[in-house]
């Protein structure tokens, strides 16, 4: 009996010891290597209508790359619901892909982990130089003054989409260029179960994108120059209030939009229930929802002056996808070659066409496909009047805290409660207190 119990105790200790070694942190942390030069793992984000569609778009290109270089790329398309968690666990454990796509607003946060390969001048040289990329897209690749943590792959921008028939029915001849015009237009349309503008009130990221741009127009930045949260400045409060007031005071947004978080505002638009939406690259979605291309128009998102430009005339955030390389990859050279391939002019044209996005590579933008009704406005916006979200390591906390505050304000507005400067300021102050203090 003793022997058996000893065995049991031994087994328990063994498993404990095994587990204890497991506590010894994740990564084989050091730098990368070129130990397996013939293979790469690539996590792509879901850009098209489903992961299978993405595979069909990407696989032929990966085959092309293999033919050119002899490097086999193992592709996994990771759904958005999992992507950030997968990246976080990969970072913690050191078990990740060689190359991956990231949402460009995550760049600074992921940069802070130190797990991604910094794109210094030398690395940029390997993919043809920094100058090949559009400035605004480069602005969303990491904290300013540091080497970017990723390179831009696909770009997107916000624009005002409108329903041509509904505009014509209401006697509106041209899309609004200022917020006042937008509200006036919206009021003309908002009657009889139809509404002027759609919003995604419960979608935190979308809320952030909208109030960030409005903040710019009010001269507010949500973060101080040295990266401290600054949510309660007059400009920030005014921006948030203006956005929520579209529902609360102007009543051009249906109260029901307060709970939208699954792109219901797009389907409302496609069904002719709302006349306008502020959205990023929505054309493909309209098509799947049964709306024909000539039924909708697109115009730059409104700005106070009527003419989009820099600073207070900003009318979009820089939306898009970046491509990053894990520092501890065992095929660093192959990984950079792959990034070079994916950001080459030819691939950029092809991929961005497939996904309806705009290439962040200057040379690729000249393709006529990016000069159509749907894409010209977006391209122009990216080039002249789009600003990157704050590139601070606390960006994701910012999205959660302020995005939630806006969501709650929308809920108040929908329930018929008043939204005042004080109530907005109070919510934002609460959001700010939840930010990590440094």
């Amino acid at each position: 009996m003793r022997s058996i119990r000893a065995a049991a105790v031994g087994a328990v200790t063994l498993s404990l010891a095994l587990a204890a070694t497991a506590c010894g942190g994740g990564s084989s942390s050091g730098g990368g290597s070129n130990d397996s030069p013939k293979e790469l793992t690539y996590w792509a984000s879901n850009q098209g209508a489903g992961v299978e569609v993405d595979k069909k778009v990407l696989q032929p290109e990966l085959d092309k790359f293999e033919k050119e270089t002899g490097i086999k790329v193992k592709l996994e398309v990771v759904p958005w619901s999992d992507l950030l968690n997968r990246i976080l666990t990969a970072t913690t454990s050191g078990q990740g892909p060689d190359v991956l796509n990231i949402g460009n607003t995550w760049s600074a946060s992921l940069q802070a982990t130190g797990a991604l390969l910094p794109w210094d001048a030398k690395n940029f040289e390997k993919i043809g130089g920094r100058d090949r990329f559009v400035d605004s897209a480069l602005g969303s690749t990491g904290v300013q003054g540091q080497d970017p943590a990723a390179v831009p792959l696909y770009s997107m921008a916000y624009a005002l989409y409108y329903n041509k028939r509904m505009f014509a029915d209401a006697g509106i001849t041209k899309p609004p260029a200022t917020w006042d015009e937008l509200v006036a237009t919206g009021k003309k349309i908002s009657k009889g179960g139809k509404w002027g503008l759609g919003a995604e009130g419960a979608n935190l990221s979308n809320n952030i994108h909208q109030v960030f741009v409005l903040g710019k127009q009010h001269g507010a930045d949500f973060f101080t120059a040295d990266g401290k949260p600054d949510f309660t400045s007059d400009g920030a409060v005014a921006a948030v209030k203006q956005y929520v007031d579209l529902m609360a005071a102007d009543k051009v947004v249906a109260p029901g939009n307060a709970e939208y978080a699954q792109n219901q505002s797009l389907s409302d638009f496609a069904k002719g229930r709302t006349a306008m939406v502020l959205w990023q690259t929505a054309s493909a979605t309209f098509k799947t929802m049964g709306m024909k291309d000539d039924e909708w128009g697109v115009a730059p998102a409104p700005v106070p002056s009527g003419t989009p430009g820099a600073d207070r005339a900003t009318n979009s955030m820089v939306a898009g996808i970046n491509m990053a390389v894990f520092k501890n990859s065992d095929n660093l050279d192959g990984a950079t070659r792959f990034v070079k391939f994916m950001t080459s002019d030819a691939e950029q044209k092809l991929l961005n066409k497939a996904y309806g996005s705009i290439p962040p590579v200057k040379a690729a933008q000249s393709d006529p496909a990016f000069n159509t009704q749907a894409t010209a406005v977006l391209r122009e916006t990216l080039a002249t009047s789009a600003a990157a979200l704050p590139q601070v390591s606390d960006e994701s906390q910012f999205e959660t805290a302020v995005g939630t505050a806006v969501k709650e304000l929308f809920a108040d507005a929908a329930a018929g409660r008043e939204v005042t400067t004080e109530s907005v300021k109070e919510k934002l102050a609460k959001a700010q207190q939840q930010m990590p203090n440094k």
Partner: protein
Amino acid sequence: MTTTTASAQPGERTVGKSSPGTARGPRRRPGRIRRLGLPYLLLLPALLLELLVHLVPMVIGVVMSFKELTQFYIRDWTTAPWTGLDNFTMSVDFDAPVGEALLHSFLVTCAFTVLSVGLCWLIGTAAAICMQDTFRGRGLLRAIFLVPYALPVYAAVITWAFMFQHDNGLVNHVLHDQLGLTDKPSFWLIGDNSFVALLVVSVWKGWPFAFLIVMAGLQNIPRELYEAAALDGAGVWQQIRRITLPSLRPVNQVLVLVLFLWTFNDFNTPFVLFGKAAPEAADLISLHIYQSSFVTWNFGTGSAMSVLLLLFLLLVTGVYLFLTSRATRAPRTPRKHEERRTADA
């Protein structure tokens, strides 16, 4: 034998029961080694797995709660600086926003859990008792009742979210458009009603489990008990009260406890229903902790909150087991069972 003696607690089973292994050992031929080593051998696989998958990660989690584990350190968490009790003091400082939000979330979770577990148990037990009798369609009905349990969580909850929509949902369609119970359509996924929505979904998802377990438990009640009671002139209602419910006690004790623990820690339901940020009225603690760790990338604070939660649940479980054990130990006339036992033997 019998269900009633079985009602001795796993925890206190050591006390009241004679075990064949020791007390009646001499009847068995195998030697001492086999006899005494065997239980450990039987337990070994379970023990190893629990250590590997539950206990060790839990210990690591506790260690993490004393660290400042933000995105700057997750690449090698052992290098994260120690912060002592900072994560804890921040979590329980109820005057500051973080602590206040946690307290609020905790209270919401308590209310939600009590209601949800109560309803799940009630419906599950009632349904199981109703389905004791054979009647036409019983098998079909039983399978139907297990449907909520068989649907993948994501699908089930997303369907409810779909039904709870303000503009196009079925719930408002019925309550407002067809029955005219409300002046205007209500919001279910934001604002105060979200608590009700969450509760409905949780009960819908949860009661079939109670049903399943109670149904299996009912099979163990010897029918002679009912026959004897019927002879004594007890009606159906009395039989339920005097035989069914007391006999279910051991099953219920564990059932209610795990339902409580699961509901308290439920993450999937609020996450799919509300997304990353739940409305204040339905801000369950697991989602709150998820937000404080994964979404804001501060795993130290999240761990500290979890440890506090663990302590609370340990306390509740301890008290619960203590009270229910005492209650079960109280005499509940196992005489009839004893009679039956002799009859069987």
